């Protein structure tokens, strides 16, 4: 071990290629003889296909092939997580075909694939395909889709219910607790649908090598191995060893690039069929229609308090919209990634969530940054701040009354929640206290009172959140229906000259693994970072992996690398002991040197690496080489938490909201690279604040998305934010070797309710006692709230 890199803001090694324009994203790759695909999509949300005529298109010069549902409609993509109905029945799992043959179920549903010599010809030809549709009524709202007489998305799914589900204490106990409450705060709200909008549109290239009978898929994915597994085993029935999946540089994911999309299998099939590489890159308009959306809950929630302000119960009914088809993880998001977080930071003794997951004529919904946890945090933190306003208690005091007491998870046990999880370690009072100090709370309230006399109202909103990440212990998720393990793989290969290649199953699409992981390796081995290279994103070089999402890369992927490093050091000590003629127990390894304890006799890491590959003087019974691979399966989730505080200004005349300050105190456990962690938080905050104020997919009555472009869907821009004010508390994770918890989603999970709470607080300060302003809190919605 040395201490040169861990904990330091080392500048990223991957940056050089990106700042000079040499990043290599999928759409940048050109293969010899490559063709271009265009997908003809349904303009209707719900319609029977009566006929498809491709004859004119097929005859166009430069068209290579056209595929329709007739040819490939029997292939479909699977769902990776099985959830059962309350009564034990298996969830409804209608097929999700690569191309639709009979009935389109959302705007953008894929009808035909055209492969041509150029992008231009492919699009021209697709427009010449004639599809005769019989348009059907559509349903887009989950709570309406279950009503009698609603349009049926799939014939095999009565009332559009995929499954119903519950978690927590028995309902009767919760009802009883609520009946005893002195005050009940209730809130009817929508956690609106969002489009993830990674800036790189999805892009895939299928390639088939008929000499070796091997396929290669280049894909903008967060998890190449998972894509290979799903596509081979569940979609196309290809042998895994004949398929290579490469996820090169990927321009952001935020969840939307976890899933196995139909187009990945389509370009693979088309490459085999045409014998030529086939590239498909979506347009942003297509991304709005087909990249899995996030959130979309319709909720009715109640929180009961006793006369002292202690929470006595929490009762929730939610309809979660899954869209028209199941996406890879869509069933886990509103259930195991959501219901299990409803304890929050509070000692709430009785909790019950009743969840109904519903099909509608909309784009599939799956994990988007935070995935289920932002929805849980939103629900809890809105209720707490609203209850404080209603009961006339300070919102921070109400939290303090209800916080779980600090525990380190080592000398004190973890905290068992009423919703299945056991928190690892936490100090919730600490982050709130620090946040209030940064805010200058008392002064703020004075300023607010002054502002209430003007045209610009001020408000403050709090959010103290917890999340479960470091996904995930395989046995636990397996018992909950996951159809995959969620371990990670880390291989460390030491070359004879002492340089080190690391292969990780995690995938970096902005997270900076090439730097963070190298910091760990360099410090643990006591070598310079330049001697370490991190490889990821290619099933041919990396043994296996589950990819990057759920803030898992460092906690799970990093831990797998550490396991391999431990094995390297242990073996190195044996080699050193042999050469230095002592027992391995007498060897200590520090700063890149194997030293005989209490002496100055030592060998460098480089000496040992060379010896391992030139084993002339070498221990008997020890294999040559210095190369270890490890699988790390975590024993628990990790539980980052924090306190987010928003200060907003509301223009009384227009309802326009401006975020004046945003304070985030996060506890993500140990920190390897503070600069990168801060960057993750910043990005998450922007997305979370974006949900509160700007973003939201809206449908019209026919199921069209009315804001499916950047001219209508408001993406957060630079001038929507102030400089963020960040600080950190460190409560190490007790159960992984790095003590890290994960930082990828925290910003997005905590921030949304803080902003909504702040706007509501501002409105109350102006005498408008509203419960909620629907997100996104557009100026008109805020203004309307002030008119009542």
């Amino acid at each position, binding site marked *: 071990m040395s201490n040169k890199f861990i904990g330091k803001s080392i500048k990223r090694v991957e940056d050089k290629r990106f700042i000079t324009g040499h990043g290599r994203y999928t759409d940048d790759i050109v293969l010899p003889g490559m063709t271009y695909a265009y997908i003809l999509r349904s303009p209707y949300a719900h319609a029977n296909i009566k006929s498809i005529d491709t004859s004119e298109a097929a005859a166009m010069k430069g068209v290579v092939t056209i595929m329709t549902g007739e040819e490939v409609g029997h292939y479909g993509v699977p769902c990776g997580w099985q959830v059962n109905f309350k009564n034990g029945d298996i969830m409804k799992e209608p097929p999700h075909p690569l191309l639709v043959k009979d009935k389109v179920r959302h705007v953008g549903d894929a009808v035909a694939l055209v492969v041509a010599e150029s992008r231009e010809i492919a699009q021209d030809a697709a427009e010449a395909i004639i599809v005769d549709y019989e348009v059907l009524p559509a349903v887009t709202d989950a709570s309406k889709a279950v009503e009698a007489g609603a349009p049926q998305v799939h014939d095999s799914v009565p009332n559009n219910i995929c499954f119903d589900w519950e978690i927590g204490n028995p309902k009767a106990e919760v009802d009883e607790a609520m009946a005893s409450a002195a005050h009940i705060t209730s809130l009817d709200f929508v956690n609106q649908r969002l489009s993830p909008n990674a800036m790189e549109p999805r892009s895939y290239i299928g390639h088939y090598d008929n000499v070796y009978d091997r396929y290669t898929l280049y894909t903008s994915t967060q998890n190449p191995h998972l894509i290979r597994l799903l596509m081979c085993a569940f979609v196309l029935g290809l042998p895994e060893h004949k398929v290579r999946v490469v996820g090169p540089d990927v321009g952001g994911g935020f969840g939307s690039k976890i899933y196995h999309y139909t187009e990945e299998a389509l370009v693979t099939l088309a490459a085999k069929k045409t014998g030529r590489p086939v590239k498909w890159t979506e347009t942003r308009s297509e991304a709005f229609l087909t990249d899995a959306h996030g959130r979309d809950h319709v909720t009715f929630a109640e929180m009961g308090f006793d006369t002292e302000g202690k929470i006595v119960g929490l009762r929730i009914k939610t309809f979660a919209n899954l869209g028209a088809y199941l996406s890879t993880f869509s069933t886990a998001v509103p259930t195991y990634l959501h219901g299990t977080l409803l304890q929050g930071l509070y000692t709430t003794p009785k909790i019950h969530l009743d969840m109904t997951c519903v099909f509608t004529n909309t784009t599939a919904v799956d994990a988007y940054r935070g995935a289920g946890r932002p929805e849980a945090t939103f629900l809890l933190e809105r209720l707490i701040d609203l209850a404080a306003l209603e009961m006339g208690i300070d919102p921070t005091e109400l939290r303090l009354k209800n916080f779980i007491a600090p525990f380190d998870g080592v000398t004190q046990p973890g905290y068992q929640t009423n919703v299945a999880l056991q928190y690892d370690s936490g100090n919730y009072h600490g982050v709130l206290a620090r946040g209030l100090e940064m805010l200058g709370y008392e002064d703020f309230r004075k300023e607010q009172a002054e502002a209430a006399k003007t045209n610009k109202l001020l408000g403050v909103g709090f959010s103290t959140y917890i999340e479960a990440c470091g996904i995930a212990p395989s046995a636990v998720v397996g018992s909950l229906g996951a159809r995959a393990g969620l371990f990670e793989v880390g291989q460390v290969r030491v070359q004879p000259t002492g340089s080190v290649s690391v292969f990780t199953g995690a995938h970096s699409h902005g997270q900076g693994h090439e730097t963070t992981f190298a910091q760990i390796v360099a410090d643990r081995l006591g070598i310079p970072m330049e001697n370490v290279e991190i490889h990821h994103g290619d099933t041919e070089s990396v043994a296996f992996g589950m990819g990057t999402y759920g803030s898992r890369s460092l906690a799970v992927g990093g831990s797998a690398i550490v396991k391999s490093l431990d094995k390297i050091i242990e073996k190195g000590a044996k080699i050193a002991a042999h050469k230095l003629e002592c027992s391995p127990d007498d060897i200590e390894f520090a700063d890149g040197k194997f030293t005989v304890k209490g002496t100055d006799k030592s060998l460098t890491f480089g000496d040992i690496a060379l010896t391992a590959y030139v084993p002339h003087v070498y221990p008997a019974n020890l294999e040559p080489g210095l190369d270890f691979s490890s699988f790390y399966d975590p024993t628990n989730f990790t539980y980052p938490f924090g306190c987010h505080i928003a200060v907003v200004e509301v223009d009384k005349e227009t309802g326009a909201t401006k975020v004046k300050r945003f304070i985030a105190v996060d506890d993500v456990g140990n920190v390897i690279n503070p600069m990168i962690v801060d960057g993750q938080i910043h990005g998450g905050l922007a997305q979370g604040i974006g949900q509160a104020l700007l973003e939201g997919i809206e449908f019209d009555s026919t199921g069209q998305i009315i804001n499916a472009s950047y*001219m209508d869907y408001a993406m957060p821009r630079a001038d929507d934010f102030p400089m963020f004010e960040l600080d950190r508390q460190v409560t190490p994770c007790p159960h992984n070797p790095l003590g890290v918890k994960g930082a990828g989603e925290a910003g997005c999970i905590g921030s949304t309710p803080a902003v909504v709470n702040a706007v509501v607080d501002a409105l109350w300060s102006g005498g408008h006692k509203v419960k909620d302003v629907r997100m996104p809190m557009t100026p008109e919605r805020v203004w309307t709230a002030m008119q009542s």
Partner: protein
Amino acid sequence: MIPQAVDYKRAGSVSEAISLLAENPDAKILAGGHSLIPAMKLRLNSPSLLIDIARIAELRFITAGDGAVAIGAASTHNDIISNADIQSRFLAMVEAGELIGDTQVRNMGTLGGSIAHADPSADWPGVLLALNATVKVEGAGGTREIAAADFFTGFFSTALEEGEIVTEIHIPNPVAGANSSYQKFLQPASRFAIVGCAVAVVITDGVISEAKVAFNGVSGEGAFLDEAVSTALLGKAATLETIEAAVAGAAEGIDINEDHYASKVYRKHLAKVYAKRALVAACEL
């Protein structure tokens, strides 16, 4: 997104552009292309030929004359807002120009293109109305000068005849006591105007002696002069009370636009707020 096949020709002069246009009825003039090309990419517009006028030198100038400032139609938004004569005369133009799109758009988009396109939410039309501009157009049949108020005729429509192009925009020089302002409430995604209000006033001895108030974004029919507000201001002291009373009648009797960012009621309310803000700024209150 790729446009449909199209031919491209660069015109060397106004007369060449006009004759190319006359020879090719399906052709379209291409200036900055920042309305036309996005529309072509979405295949909402598919001309057979584009006649590029952006580099015609005689269309790209700004000259301050005795009576007016003349702006060539191919002057970009950035040309205009960085011009010293404009800056010293027409604050509303600078304020409006700075809020059009973004730097990249302002480097390409032109004044002539914007007004020929006549997007109801575009910023220049309101400003030209308030500043009492004249639009000079030229076609095979000669040139015409059209008052801005007659040039904008509705939803994406203008007084331009087939085969005519906009060549110049003239804005009369401000008189003593004149001032102007443009205030805009942005649609948060496109950043076009939900409500844009351009005002020009002349204040003589503390009294408003001339006033023009124009809106864009408010009506789907395009930019318009709000005579009622102007009339209510005339002859009154330039005070907040005067302004508040006058804007109370803003956008009355207008078919107000509606979309998912702003209902009719809210838009009308914003029109009053933004008229007030623009007038307060122009009256330097």
